[in-house]
């Protein structure tokens, strides 16, 4: 029988954006609400896995030309860099700093360097899960 995935592919396209936006929301809410880098990264890679299920690996690689192994390195660099950046200000390793800023669209916002560390976690989680899944999927 000829396979016809049009329903699944259309729904995957719509649902992908819902999951990605929810992942970003969970990532940014991690300081005050449940969530954070790990869950956000897992949700993001879950959205990419949904695309991998609906389409094939080549299409996803063409639409999302990211080397996920480089993403692991970038995330580790963010984590180590945030931790080591505190050494420049003569404070112990891993000391975090925060302050309140008046941003044009958000109003009074507190920005914290722990968020950069969380961004590292986010990148590493996406990179590791996607690398595992792609290597398993590519092996014959």
């Amino acid at each position, binding site marked *: *029988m000829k396979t016809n995935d049009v*329903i699944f592919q259309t*729904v995957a396209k*719509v*649902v992908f954006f*819902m999951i990605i936006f929810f992942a970003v929301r969970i990532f940014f809410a991690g300081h005050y609400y449940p969530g954070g880098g790990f869950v956000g990264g897992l949700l993001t890679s879950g959205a990419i896995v949904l695309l991998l299920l609906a389409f094939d690996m080549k299409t996803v690689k063409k639409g999302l030309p990211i080397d996920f192994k480089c993403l692991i390195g970038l995330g580790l660099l963010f984590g180590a860099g945030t931790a080591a950046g505190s050494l420049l200000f003569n404070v112990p390793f891993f000391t975090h700093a925060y302050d309140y800023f008046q941003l044009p669209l958000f109003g009074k916002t507190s920005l914290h360097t722990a968020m950069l560390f969380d961004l590292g976690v986010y990148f590493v989680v996406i990179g590791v899960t996607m690398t595992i899944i792609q290597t398993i999927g590519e092996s014959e």
Partner: protein
Amino acid sequence: MTVISDIIIVFLLLAGAFLSLVAAFGVIRLPDVYTRNHAASKSATLGVMFILLGTFIFFLAKDGFFSSRLLLGIAFFFITAPVAGHLISRAAYNSGVKMWDKSVRDDLKNKK
């Protein structure tokens, strides 16, 4: 105001629980995979949506908390659950699962 919202909340939660129970009975009682899938995907979808809507109205009326996550959950479930049922049914048909012996119609039989 609170009495009206309480009645709506109780109705939504009980209706959702009842529909989920109906879905469970359908999965047990119906004869083959397609009719079971029909019961499970439709009835459980509406049941879960009722329960989520009741929860949403509860937090809106009690705490004044507008939970956009519950609305997103309702929309997400409404989109994905029927598609999941469709994919399961199609996978069952393509792998040759037999229909109930009293079925009278199979439009896909000659489409191979």
